[in-house]
């Protein structure tokens, strides 16, 4: 059986067998679901803290990292993890309220972001494998994930989730009310850095699935939908994880049977659901009036 023989039938069990017939699809599902789990949890805090822009900046720095290590012949994921961690520390420093100015938040971060995108282009040019590499990093390459990448994804997911679980409540406190948290003895600055680094890990892994440019689809939109549905943090995190998993699995499955790319399907599902929830909320408010 080759991928050309794949076709959708009415027999669901046969369809699922087809879906997992190839090793690359097994890897895609394992990595995709792990990343969705991370993105669902970390994305919630990111949305709560209003750090969506920071996440996007990390992915741009990650782009330069991924293409940079490709020059050395390493797996892009190492470059992603390394550069996202460095970017996380930098962003942690810039988001320090003591250094914060109008420059610190918007202009400086934007300038850094575009420079690293440019740097990534340079690295791709130097590596002589222009189209293939740039496409994979910008739009994701979940169908080309190796066994080693899956292993690394498992480690990163465990570390990130353990980290978030350990700091969840103080993190929620500092995200909502940094002044009171500080007064109550919560190490606000330390938590800023720790969360920034965990966000860096998540961004690095999400780039594998949806790529630098489509990162919002996994990291921001599920969490943004969740907070529209509920104001309870635990429920919101649950919904955020569920949606990220759902988008990833449906995206991968549909992409397998149709010519649609995974990145489009995940972001399309995220966008569609977001619009539906917003319309529903809008209708609710109108009805209440």
């Amino acid at each position: 059986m080759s991928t050309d023989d794949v076709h959708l039938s009415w027999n669901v069990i046969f369809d699922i067998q087809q879906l997992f017939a190839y090793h690359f699809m097994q890897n895609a599902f394992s990595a995709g679901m792990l990343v969705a789990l991370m993105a669902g949890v970390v994305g919630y805090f990111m949305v709560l803290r209003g750090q969506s822009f920071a996440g996007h900046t990390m992915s741009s720095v990650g782009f330069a990292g991924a293409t940079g290590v490709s020059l050395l012949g390493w797996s892009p994921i190492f470059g992603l993890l390394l550069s996202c961690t460095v970017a996380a520390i930098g962003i942690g420093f810039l988001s320090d309220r003591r250094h914060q100015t109008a420059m610190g938040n918007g202009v400086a971060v934007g300038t850094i972001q575009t420079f690293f995108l440019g740097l990534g282009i340079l690295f791709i040019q130097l590596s002589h494998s222009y189209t293939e590499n740039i496409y994979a990093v910008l739009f994701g390459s979940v169908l080309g994930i190796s066994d080693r990448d899956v292993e690394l994804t498992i480690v990163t997911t465990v570390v990130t989730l353990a980290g978030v679980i350990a700091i969840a409540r103080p993190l929620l406190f500092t995200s909502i009310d940094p002044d009171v948290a500080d007064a109550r003895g919560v190490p606000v600055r330390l938590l800023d850095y720790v969360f920034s680094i965990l966000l860096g890990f998540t961004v690095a892994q999400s780039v594998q699935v949806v790529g630098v440019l489509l990162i919002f689809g996994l990291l921001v939109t599920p969490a943004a939908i969740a907070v529209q549905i509920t104001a309870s943090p635990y429920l919101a995190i649950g919904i955020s994880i569920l949606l990220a998993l759902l988008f990833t699995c449906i995206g991968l499955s549909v992409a397998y049977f149709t010519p649609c790319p995974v990145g489009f399907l995940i972001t399309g599902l995220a966008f569609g659901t977001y619009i539906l929830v917003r319309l529903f909320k809008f209708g609710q408010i109108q009805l209440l009036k």
Partner: protein
Amino acid sequence: MINNTIDFKVSTFSTETYSHLGLRNIIEFDRAGIRCGGRVLWSNVNLSIQPGEFIAVLGPNGAGKSTLLKAILGLLPLSEGKLTLLGVPVRRGNHAVGYLPQRRTFGSDVHLQGRELVRLGLDGTKWGVPLPGLRMLWGGDKLARVERRRVQQAIEMVGAATYANRPIGTLSGGEQQRLLIAQALVTRPRILLLDEPLDSLDLYNQQAVSALIRQVSQEYQIAVLLVAHDVNPLLPYIDRVLYIGRGQTAIGTPEEVITSATLSRLYDSPIDVLHTQDGRLFVVGQPESVTYHPHSSHQND
């Protein structure tokens, strides 16, 4: 012989402080002073506050009102003197102190239940997450029930039960302020520090929140320090006024402190206090309208 000399020394260093020491005072400033960026904000402050007292902290912008609260929170070190809370030296993260910082309001994009905001006052400093399944293994369920009840009590105390489950961002300024007070009260503090809690409220809510603070303070014997710009909505409720101006302080009942003589001395320039027929006070000729200290804006962060 030796004992006698020690007793003698203690009693001479400050008779006024000594008479209250360790007996009833919950906050004790002893010749305390603080400087910020080379400028002395206030110095030589001697002040004793008893449980259940409701004190308004007044003064011009940049006089060090918020700084006073931060000193009690242990966020800013004193440059001179001593500050004792409940008989022990001041330290950061003291659970006996509830705090409401100066702020505007939560934006409409804050999608978090009011109840969770209150709950953070109780468990926001604890590491780890209470996972419902795991919790039962080590008997954490009982603790969780106790915590839920305390959160509910704090919410009912401020009369926020009807809207506690709605997202904070959708609530009015008065409703948000009540929930924040509930958050400060949920640890059952002995001291409550409120930094301009009335600023974002309309006149009706200013009075209602003041009355609420008075009631809570008396019922639970909490010492309250409330920083305010306008003393008028507070006048029916407060016990004493602490006026900070030009590095000096004055404390006493509103009638004692908010007088032309005291304020003129504090500001070192002539100031008039006008009384309206309905008992309201107006301070005329405050230097803050004439001089402005740009380097003192750091404390309004």
